[in-house]
């Protein structure tokens, strides 16, 4: 059972206090988008063995959605950050790059 730090209320929350919301940083495709883009947005998800960006909601706490950068293989958490962003903060990207040489945000997953 994971522990994730809620960046809003500052609580280190047990996984049972959280609700998992799948892959973070998806770009919404609305009316007018191509079938390929819409399919990608709606159905295709990264499933990496390694660094992954996930959505979590502190549902039995402050109720806020946040993002977590986490290694799915080792369960190391590189950091959590508010959901109101298009990409992870620089310090988290740096931390991942240090821990996983060769990784960069541009490659995503």
């Amino acid at each position, binding site marked *: 059972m994971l522990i994730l730090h809620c960046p809003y209320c500052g609580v280190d929350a047990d996984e049972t206090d959280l609700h998992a919301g799948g892959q973070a940083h998806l770009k919404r495709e609305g009316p007018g988008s191509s079938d390929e883009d819409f399919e990608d947005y709606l159905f295709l998800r990264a499933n990496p063995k390694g660094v992954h960006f996930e959505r979590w909601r502190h*549902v039995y706490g402050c109720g806020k959605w946040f993002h977590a950068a986490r290694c799915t293989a080792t*369960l190391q958490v590189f950091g959590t950050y508010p959901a109101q962003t298009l990409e992870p903060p620089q310090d988290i990207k740096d931390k991942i790059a240090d821990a996983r040489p060769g990784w960069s945000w541009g490659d995503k997953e």
Partner: protein
Amino acid sequence: MSTRLAGKGRLINKSRAVSFRFNGKNLSGFEGDTLASALLANDQMLMGRSFKYHRPRGVVGAGAEEPNALVNLGEGGQFEPNQRATTTEIFDGLTATSQNHWPSLEFDVGAINTAFSRFLPAGFYYKMFMYPRAFWKHVYEPFIRQSAGLGKAPKDRDTSTYEHYHAHVDVLVVGGGIAGLAAAQAAGERGARVLLIEQGNSWGGRAMVDTPTIDGIAAEEWVNNTIQALENMQNVDLRLRCMGAGVYDHGYVLAYERLTDHAPKDEGPRHRLWRVRAKQVVTATGAIERPLSFAGNDIPGVVLSAAVRDYAVNYGVSLGDRTVVVTNNDDAYRTAITLKQAGLDIPAIIDARPTAQGPLIDAARALDIRIEFGKGIAKVKGGKRVKSVGICAQAGEGAVLEEIECDCVAMSGGWSPVVHLWSHCGGKLVWDAEQVMFRPDHENPPLGADGAAFVATAGVANGHLFTAEVVADGWAAGRSAAKAAGHVKRGGQAPIGEDAEEGPISSVWLMPQGAKHALRSKAWLDFQNDVKVSDVQLAAREGFESVEHAKRYTTLGMATDQGKLSNINGLAILSQSLNDEIPNVGTTTFRPPYTPISMGAITGVARDALFQPIRKTPVSDWANANGADNEPVGQWRRPYAYVRGGETVHDAVNREVRNARENVGLLDASTLGKLVVKGPDAGKFLDLMYTNMMSTLPVGKCRYGLMCSENGFLMDDGVVVRMDDNTWLCHTTTGGAERIHAHMEDWLQCEWWDMQVYVANVTEQYAQIAVVGPKARKLLRKLGGDMDLSAEALPFMQWKAGKIGAFDARVFRISFSGELSYEVAVPAGQGAAFWDALLEAGEEYGVMPYGTEALHIMRAEKGFIMIGDETDGTVIPQDLNLQWALSKKKEDYIGKRAHTRSHMADPNRWKLVGLETLDGSVLPDGAYAIADGTNDNGQGNTQGRVTSTYYSPTLDKGIAMGLVHKGPDRMGEVIEFNKVDGTTIAAKIVDPVFYDKEGEKQDV
């Protein structure tokens, strides 16, 4: 025979006899005995039967690893199967019965299987039960069910109580042997918050039996001193009978404490499940001795060497008068020495090694014990008890050189560290060829949230078999763990241990090395599931080369002991069969729990009323006192109908419908979700949430809205109310309030976070009561207040706030029944009084409450859809003829893009229609409309299904709604629906609105 020795027994109290029953016999033991030791003291070596061949089984171990001595324990509400006799402490009045035999333990008909064992090889079930297909259901399944399962399932409700306990610690030490004690002491001295748990009922582990020296004093004294010191530390907690069951992500550990199993008359819960969050975990879980694989090694009386020693030292029990010791290492010599010193006969030590030297060998020699090097056991003779062993050359094929009479064989194949807890959360293992064991690989530990190790192993569990290393390693592990948890205080000193030097072990996986098939097919690996050396070899020959495949094919290690004794021996045989190295074959996966834990402990207090919270409305108490027949709706209990004396539920439903249609009915609608959406951008936000336009809804008006998921499926519906310029009130379905609230929050926080909007769930802040029927207005007017409730002042689909009588009310002119209807919301605290006032004032109008079934019938009569009936997560608004609610003006809303996908726009979709049987009967719920031909699986084709079906008291006939292929284009057509009895029923496709098609009754 097995019997009690004079004057011995470290853990028993001979001045206090305990009486218990086994298979109906009254027996006696001593306080401190386990069920196994007490049975052995009564010469009851035979304790059960094996699973597959029903072979006679006696104890093979003395602890948690025991695969054989499993019993049904207790009676009635205290009954529990598959309890290990070796870890069950006896108490006055204990009752136990042995398992897996008929008619009796001594004479078992199922033992015939053993005669046919050559026809029941590995994979027997897979090979036997394939053909012919016609036998699957009526021949093979009954046979498999008959032979499946070990022990009996409890019949009575469990009368014990259980609880959970949460603990947060710096360092959790699992295992109360000398390594665990040293670790706890080191961590405690550094100031860390420490929890030390031990699965047994005493501290010190094997050191108490083998008595090495620590810090210059006997181990027992050192253990007692250390426990004293730990108990004096404020920051250290100690728990006996508490097993580390599983290690999970980020330092989460489950521990299983057995509080009153040994003293069932004590107050309080029987088991406690500890849910521990530890910054660091030290597993000092020791090791388990391995059996040796020789023919007849499963015959009762063949026991692990250290267990024989444990029974003698701890319980003063000898397993036999003449014990042959067979080994590949020095440790087993301790058993021979212990027994010899207790006055028992040791005809020989059979040592598979060509030679060995050291103080233990010298000590055995000094006691005149015969030692045979380079020898093995060819075969054990005996049925329900060992009679003799045939000795052979270990290097040979099993020619018997000499037969030695004996009634006990003490075997030792070396030690396997208990690496389970290390492995649960990803810790890897290395093969130590010198010590012949898998031990933890420190390069690959389980990692915590910070990417650093959070589990360390110590002592024997870490591959250190000698006291000096064990205590030093334990102390170092405790110190490092405390440091990793942030406690860096210096001080303390590592204990110094010493014991007899031992020579090297040699790997012996089969005895003798060249054993022929006749011997290999009698050399057991898994005693409980009857897996032999020959079975694993057969699996390898048949291509089950992966250790995980071989395990499942042979069932090796799949019994209740999860292969604690058999796994390493089995994979060694597998690796030999594959001509590969043991580390390349690898182990199967270690999964929690370490030993089985009770279902009660997992449940804790979450049963009966505490299983889940029951939500109540302000009207619930009245309803329950007035005939409510409740149905669960999420965590709510809603009255299905209010049943009066002498009525059936069906009668009550029909009465409630007729009364609402003719007079006036009251529905407790408080459970409907109520979400307040407020802010400068609330209108814009709701235009995205709903398929309809909500921003243009004028203040004071109500609008029925639909909500789709992003992939276009209808997920909720309800009436949206414009409260003021910046505020909307969104009604959701009863089950949808929390889900839709979360859905809105998700989009608001994660996609359109620039919008200035708040969403609040006020569902429980209001009691909402629907006043429904032609006399509804009269009833509300009679209550008085300051509101004009006329059709002109408050028309259909509008709302107003004001006073009804003395109550603060919001009155919504909305109708889910087709009748004149006012839904009145009052603050929750006024709800019960408002309900009472309505009943009292309504008496002259014939007011009656109605339940959810009447609500369903009335909405179905009107052709209104119900989320969850007409929708199932694959239905889109277009299927339900609700195109009118899909705004064409809006550029975007959730689901809009999805509705343009080709499958959504397909004209062949099943669409909503009304259905009427030709004979007026009620269609079966969920019935399928049958179509011509069959599909690729040979199943009949379908062309629609029933989504709602009721008897309509208003129309006195069955009415239904369903989704039918191109349904709206086929009005008047008759189609057939299947019934469970195989016949069909004809129904005509009609308009889904059965009652008041023009909607005149609700708009008055």
